[in-house]
């Protein structure tokens, strides 16, 4: 499973896909990592991201990588969420929202959940553009430089690496063209 995800991740970087898909996957992964799991909001975002044309592999890898670190940001997320949730001007809105069907399941009234959502949304655009730039740089500069290096070729002979490479080929039919 992990190997498959890593293969998808590498394949996605090298695939003939719009850089925005990868960048959106990264941004969505950051968003899902910041929001605590186990609520309807998190599930809904995951489902929406699965329906959108963005790279799910990149999203999952990003989320898995950042989730263990996300709790470090909880105090900050709690402050953000608490500030918003206790804002007098928004009380009526939140009260109305809470009475809507299924809304309580989103746990939007939890400070970390809402703080994570807001922080994730705020970071989404910068992360998206940053991701696009990084993917472009990777495809145009980094990948060609390392793809033909002797070190990489030797590295590919390691069993686990060769297995990943095989999966990458499976997930990326352009692999042969660019390799």
């Amino acid at each position, binding site marked *: 499973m992990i190997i498959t995800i890593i293969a998808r991740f590498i394949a996605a970087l090298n*695939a*003939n*896909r*719009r*850089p925005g898909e990868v960048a959106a996957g990264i941004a969505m992964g950051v968003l899902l990592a910041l929001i*605590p*799991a*186990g*609520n309807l909001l998190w599930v809904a975002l995951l*489902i929406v991201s*699965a*329906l*959108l*044309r963005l790279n799910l592999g990149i999203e999952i890898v990003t989320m898995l990588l950042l989730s263990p670190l*996300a*709790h470090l940001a*909880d105090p900050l*997320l*709690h402050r953000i*969420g*608490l500030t918003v*949730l*206790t804002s007098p001007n928004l*009380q009526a809105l*939140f*009260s109305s*929202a*809470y*009475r809507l*069907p*299924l*809304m*309580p*399941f989103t*746990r939007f*009234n*939890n*400070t*970390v*959940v809402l*703080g994570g959502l807001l922080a994730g949304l705020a970071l989404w655009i910068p992360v998206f553009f940053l991701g696009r730039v990084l993917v472009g740089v990777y*495809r*145009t500069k980094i990948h060609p430089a390392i793809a033909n290096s002797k070190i990489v070729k030797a590295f590919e002979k390691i069993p686990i690496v060769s297995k990943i490479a095989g999966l990458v080929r499976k997930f990326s*039919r*352009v692999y042969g*063209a*660019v390799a």
Partner: protein
Amino acid sequence: MATRIPRAYRRPLTATRFRKKILGRIYLDTEREFVAGAFHEGDDGKYRLREDLTPEDKKRLARIAKEIKKNRGLLRIGRIAVPLLIVGGAVAFNLLFLDRILETNGEKLLERVFGAQVEIEQLDAQPMEGRITLAGLIVADRDRPMRNLFEFGPTTIAIRMPELFTGRVVIREISTTGIAFGTERTTSGALDDSDAAGGDDGSGAGLEDLEQRTEAGLDAVVDSLGVDGIGGLDDLSLEALSLDVEALIADARDDLTVTTLVPEAIEDTEAAIASTEAQLEGISGRVRGLGDTVQEVAAIDPSSLTNPQTILSTVQTIESTRDSVSALGEDARTLQRSLEAEIARLRETEQALRNAAQNDLDALQARIPDFDIDPSAIAEAGARAFVAGFLGEAWNTVQRVIAVAQRVRAAIPESTERDRRPRRGGVDIPFSETPYPRFVIERLAGDGGDSSQRIEVSVTGISSDPDLTDSTTEIVFRRDRTDGRYLHLESELDLRSGARMRSESLFEAVGAEPSLPEAAQQIGFASLNGATRLSGGTILFADGALAGTLDAVVTDPRLSATEGASPVAELIAGIASEQEQIDGSFTFELRDAAITDIEASTSLTELLRAQVEQLIADLRAEAEARIREEIDRIVAEQIERLAEEIAVFDVLVGRSTEELLRIETYEQILDEQKTELESRVADIRDQAEAAARAAVEQAEAQARAEAEAAAEAAAREAESRVRDAAGGIRLPGRRN
């Protein structure tokens, strides 16, 4: 087989379309350059695929065409279809099988709550209207599997649908008819072990613990309310009033003087008897030994004795024997005095026994228990017995209700504050105006009954999390019989964690057949009949204490005592049955499964007072008479033993007297013989003196006659001879 040219490349493409739709959707430079090189611009400005492409180029173009197709649009339509199908399927499944699902889950949930089989009949859910109807609901009694705890007839359940989408089951109202309690079942309503295990969702341990604690508490209460545990009943002490005099005397026997005085005296006389008998035997032997000597002495005929020497020797023998007889006589008299002293001591003991009997009687009568019973204590004891049964029922009912409430909470575990939050914490800001817990029944109302009675039940505020709703559960139960009897009960159950009182109940029951609690039956009451009216209230505190009041009126009471019941029980039964009405008022407090305080007053108290006093006086007089009789019997027995001992001594005295008489006879014989012999000696002496005097006179005459001179010499010579003869005989006591 030659690779087909993708359709997108077959038609000529305008420059704009070629740039946007083809090249614009290729994001790898190498691929883009390849595709650009695979097309050439025609004279008409349109791009066409080159003719000289190799099969590999065509394959590569086909692959890139697929990627271009995939890169179109923002949504993945194919992926939307899958969840839609899943959701649609789930909705369709639920709509088709909703009734059965609700029925099965409802039965499982209620089985967890009530711990017995539950049957829901013909459930029909109308989700759009927020209503569920049932043809019937039957809940078996966990403690009596062949009976139902209750059953509902046709029932309508109105649900707040919006709350269902928030994960909460909020029932606005349950309306039911055909309520019945305690109906019989044809099959056992007990849950299989597997069902019970299956119904345990992890809260089982807690539930079981709760049940055990509840049942243990109930058992402890019932135990504590038993006869032994009720202090007043000990004072009533029906056994104490039926006093066992023999047992009382037996207990005190070792301390009684009448039982110890005679044995002690007899113990001393036994040694005296043995010693006396030995002494008497010795005296008798000595008497027999002297008897022969005395007989020999008596056989002597003093007149036959002529020789003074012989007589003197015999007298000496008699004197010696007389001395022995005198010594024996002294010993016999000493023994006689000793025997008479023993007899006197025994007679003194007899008198002392008679004197001690009165003291012992007084002491034993002082041991008769104080029967000075306060009739109110009797009333209280009876009340305790009555309240014991009542409390047992009340405690049972309250604990069952609380247990069911706790089971509701356990069966529908309320998400804890920790669970409500995502794993990474945070704080939930409440926005709900009505904070419903996961399970709420706002109101349950129903009625039932038959031609003989009508039942109405109303319960409001059943909640799986009373702390969240901050409300109590109110229960109203009314059963009105057509013959005028009724039972009305109102109870407020507060299961909030900070509540001081757990439940507060008021009740009124009229016309119920009074049933004696087991505790009352144990003290000798068999049955109580009559029309009753009970009213009062109980408060169960959160710390487990139960306090309450109970006013009871029994009209035309008929209280019967069990066969062989104590006099007090029979007395109370008699008095109670003579009354037109008995009023009783009780207040009680129960803490730590024991009655800690109870007060009772009944209309029987004053009536009981006089009767009890008379009964106590009679019992005391009877006990005293029996004690006196017993003491007299013991004294007579002891005197008889003394008489036996005295008789023994009398026999000894008789024997001693006989010996003494013999001795005295011997003394008399010896004295008489001695006197005779001395008299005989005197006679012989007188005869000798007379003979001598005559001889002298004769010699004087002869001398005078023969010669005066010679006569004078002869006379002196004769006189000298007479003197010699008289000087040889020296009689005792007689001096020359």
